[in-house]
Every structure is written in structure tokens, then in C-alpha cells.
């Protein structure tokens, strides 16, 4: 599942329309817009709101690791209005802290530094982009998943020639809609990475075993690893009938260990 956090309704609208996200009934906190693959929250302006939205989204499905995207508008000294950027460094202007989203993929648009400020910035003092949420979003999302799965995508809405005060909701919708192709690419990359991550965490289905025998927590870990080893060495599924004479979990584990020991061990059979 991909979790998207935006600050403003006009940032979210093009996404809600494009990805056909349905709004849940009003809940106590935030309203979640969702389809089968993603959830979105319009958090409001600022770092705290963005961080709170992350926690709220994670709470919607706390056991799972999700991909994260902060999408919105940002200012930059001289980039063109409508240009898209991905943040390669996020700095909190007030605390001085910095974070570095890992990027193990070819980026769909240029990457630059992003500074989160507490008040709208019209000075554009550096070559970084300026927003008001990423420094709240990123560390909050990093509590829940690995940095490769957390990205910040911004579309330039203001610059020296067109300062922040002049940005309208209508214009914001327009520039975000124009970048839906690049947004889509970034989202596909996140889905792809998330699928790879899930592969690492794939738990072998132990339920059939657990229905028949009682496994302590420690034995569950043992069984999990044994099933992984079984599948690493043998593509076929385990036939539970092979264990039907086993009276308890201990003998199931011993038997499975023995079966794995007898499996072929070759590296030239792929």
C-alpha cells in the first residue's frame, strides 16, 4: 500500500481524480481517501500536520510496511513554475536537522535539496527548494519503513519572479495535473520497491501447522526459518500428511529439519 500525504486540498484533488480515490466517511482526525493500492490524507500546512498524518495513516494498517510519498508544491529561486523535483536531502530550517532519502532507482525528474520552513519563504536564499511539510513527513514516515520507500515529490509553484503570495489553488491544481505522468512514474517505482521489500518479508504460511500443533513463540520462529529453508532448497510445497504421525510441535520441527537435510543441495540446477 502507498500512503500519500499532501498539505492542501488543491494538491490532492488531481490525485484523487486520477487514481479514483474514494473518501471514507468523516473520521475523528483526518479523512482518508483510498483505493485498493493507496491511501491519501490532506494533512494541512506545516510539519506537525504532516507528521500527524503519517501516524494516522500507519494506524490504518499498523502491522504492514507501506511506501510513503509526500506530494505538494514548493518554491525555488529560479526553477520554472511547474517543474517537478524529488528531494535528495530534506533539511529542517528551524532545527538544522537533515535527512537523506535513499534513491536506488533512476529518478523520474531532477533531484535537489529541500528545506522545510515554518513560514512561507520568499527569499529563496539557496539553490534548494522550500516547502513547509517534508521535515515533518520524512522523520515520521521513517519510523515505519526504510528510507528507500519514502520519497518527497514537489512541483515548483513559486520563484523569485512569481513569489509565494501569488499562488492560487486553481494554479496549483493545474501544475500538479501537468506532472501526473512523472508522479505516476515515481509511484510505480515506489510500488516496485515495496513489492521487493515485501518479498524479503514474505512469511511462509505456517497456519496449517499451527492449526494442528501448538508452537511456542520460539518454535514459531524456528518453524518459519525451516519453511524458508525448505523453499530455498525445494520449489514444491510441503505435504502436511508427511507429518501426520507427529504428536507434537517438537517432533514436527525435528522431522522437518531431517527432511531439509536430505534435500539436494546444488547451485547449478536453476
Amino acid at each position, binding site marked *: 500500500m502507498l500512503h500519500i500525504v499532501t498539505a492542501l486540498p488543491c494538491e490532492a484533488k488531481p490525485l484523487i481524480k486520477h487514481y479514483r480515490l474514494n473518501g471514507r466517511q468523516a473520521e475523528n482526525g483526518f479523512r482518508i481517501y483510498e483505493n485498493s493500492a493507496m491511501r491519501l490524507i490532506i494533512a494541512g500546512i506545516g510539519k506537525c500536520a504532516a507528521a500527524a498524518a503519517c501516524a494516522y495513516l500507519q494506524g490504518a494498517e499498523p502491522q504492514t510496511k507501506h511506501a510513503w510519498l509526500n506530494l505538494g508544491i514548493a518554491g525555488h529561486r529560479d526553477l520554472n513554475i511547474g517543474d517537478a523535483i524529488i528531494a535528495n*536531502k530534506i533539511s529542517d530550517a528551524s532545527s538544522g536537522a537533515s*535527512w537523506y532519502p535513499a534513491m536506488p*532507482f533512476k529518478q523520474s525528474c531532477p533531484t535537489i535539496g529541500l528545506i522545510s520552513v515554518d513560514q512561507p519563504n520568499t527569499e529563496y536564499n539557496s539553490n534548494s527548494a522550500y516547502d513547509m511539510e517534508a521535515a515533518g513527513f520524512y522523520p515520521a514516515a521513517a519510523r515505519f519503513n*526504510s528510507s*528507500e520507500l519514502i520519497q518527497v515529490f514537489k512541483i515548483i509553484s513559486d520563484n523569485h519572479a512569481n513569489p509565494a503570495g501569488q499562488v492560487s489553488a486553481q494554479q496549483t491544481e493545474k501544475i500538479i495535473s501537468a506532472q501526473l505522468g512523472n508522479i505516476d512514474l515515481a509511484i510505480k517505482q515506489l510500488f516496485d520497491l515495496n513489492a521487493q521489500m515485501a518479498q524479503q518479508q514474505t512469511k511462509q504460511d505456517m497456519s496449517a501447522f499451527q492449526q494442528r500443533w501448538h508452537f511456542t513463540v520460539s518454535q514459531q520462529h524456528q518453524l518459519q526459518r525451516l519453511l524458508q529453508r*525448505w523453499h*530455498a532448497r525445494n520449489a514444491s510445497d510441503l505435504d502436511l500428511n508427511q507429518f501426520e504421525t507427529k504428536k507434537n510441535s517438537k517432533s514436527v520441527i525435528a522431522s522437518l529439519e531431517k527432511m531439509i537435510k536430505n534435500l539436494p*543441495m546444488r*547451485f547449478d540446477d536453476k
Partner: protein
Amino acid sequence: MIQTIYIEQAIFDHPRTVAIRQRFPKASIVPCQHYGEVFNPKAQNFRLQKQQPSLILAEKFNKFVLEAPTSYNIGGQRNYYFSHMLNCVYDCRYCFLQGMYRSANYILFINYEDFDTAIEKVATESDKPTYFFSGYDCDSLALEPVTGFIKHTLPLFQKLDNAYLELRTKSTQIRSLLEVEAMPNCIVAFSLSPDSLAAALEHKAPSLAKRLDALDKLQIAGWPVGLRFDPIIYCDNYQQLYNDFFEQVFARINLNQLHSVSLGTFRMPQGFYRNTVKLYPDEKLFAGPLTESQPMVGYEPELEQQILAFCRKKILQLMPEEKLFICHDDD
């Protein structure tokens, strides 16, 4: 291709930084205060990052040269290692680096001169020969065209009579060696595995044939070469596999140029092993007859002895015993 280069502010304008930036004109440049900000955070996944690692240029301040474990030697009593780089361009499934670091990004420490000073100090504080190993935390040669570290360091060893340098590699990047006169105190040691195991486990590394070609060129040019059969990997047909492999390798070796051969079975510190299994739970290597006991994970002791005895016997049919060294981790 490097797409992102993180650079510590303090070395942003260092000539080596500038040269490396010029080599990757399209890379995004990200300044940072200290490499640890990028390399050390917890929320990172080595396996995902390995798909496209970034380069981190940093400055090292201490621990330039460290004592090597006592069982790792190729005939010397004083053994040290140094790492001008952390992480490797190859993706070998048996490598401890994937369990040791959270990040797969490459760190290059660009203050080479400080390594020189530390090496010289250690080498000259004793009359005994001192061995320096450079391929512990990275491949010694694989990124040489970018780093130029070996080209920089060889002249130091030319003037250190009593110091030996081992370059451990799977790489074919040997141009910087072939461009200079061979040095008797610099051993180019190739890590080699049978073809089928290299294909299954040594991802992104040159094939056995290419490594042997590189080794051949170096020995013809007069460089002492080493063979590193470490780790030996167990499989049902390991005897046939390694029998044929050793014959294939030694058919290319000029024994006069052969400095040393080392031999060891697959093993990994337990903590690193557990981290690695989490990254690759479906890897066949980790589903084999391994035993997990502190501080190391390795093959069951009896099997380990069988494998080592078999390999040792076969290798000694092909080369003199005094050049063979067995690597254990008993200490």
C-alpha cells in the same frame, strides 16, 4: 553508473572530489556534514540500495590501519588491513558486508595521504616484514578507474622494503598495475570460485574466465599473484566441482609467480549472518548445512573439516605446501 554523490562539506573542493565529480557530470551532488548522516541511519535496506548504490565522498580521521585477525595471513607475522573504501561494487551473497552495514552506498575516503602516513608508520616500527591487506571492506581494484587509490599507493610500497601489500580482488581493472613495473612486494590476489557457484552467488562480478585472463596478464607482466579460494561453498557435488575447478585454475598458473594460496570455507559472524538472512530469506546458500554458534556461523564442524581436507589434498597435488594457508576463525 553513479547517479548520486554525497560529499562532506569539508572536502567539497578537494582536488580528488573535483576529479570524481567531473567523471560523473550527470550525477546529483548532495552536500552533507558527515558521511554518517547518509550511511548510518537505521531505516535503510541494503538489498534495495544494492540495485543502485550512491557514492559518498568523505574524510577519514583515525584508525587508518588496523590489525588483521591472526588467522588471516599469507606467511607474515605482522598483518594489518586498511580500507580506503567501504562496500563493494559486486554483490556476493556470502559477503559479510551485506550484514555489517545498513547502507549499500560506497564510501570513499579521499585523504589518501593520511593512509600513507599510517602505513609507513606501522611498516617502519618493526624489522619484521609487515603485510597490509587492502581488500577487506571493498574490492581493491573494482573502482580503481574512479578512485585511483592503488595508483597513488604503489609508489609508497616501492620505497618500503619490508612491507607487503595484498590487493584482493575479483576485478579485471588491472590497467593501473600493467602500466607500471611489477613490484615483488605487491601481491595481486584473486578470489575465485567455480563457474556455477560464481554465477549463482557472485552477482555483478566478472566470470571466472575473465578473472583468470586478468590474472594471466599480471603474472606475465611479472606481478606476484595470489589465489583466494575463500569461501569454499558446500554443495552435493562439491568434490567433483572443486576438483575440476582447481585443475582449471592451476593450468593457468605459473608457480614461480604464485605468492600464496589461501583456503577457507563459508563462515560469517553470527550477527552479520542474521542480518543477511533477513535480507535474503530465500537464498539457498543460507539453507545449507550451517551451524549457528557464537561468534561465527559456518558449516557443521565435521563437514567443514571434510571440505578443507579434500580441497587441501587436491591443491597440494598442484602446488607446494609452503604457499598454502588455511583460514579459520577459531580465534
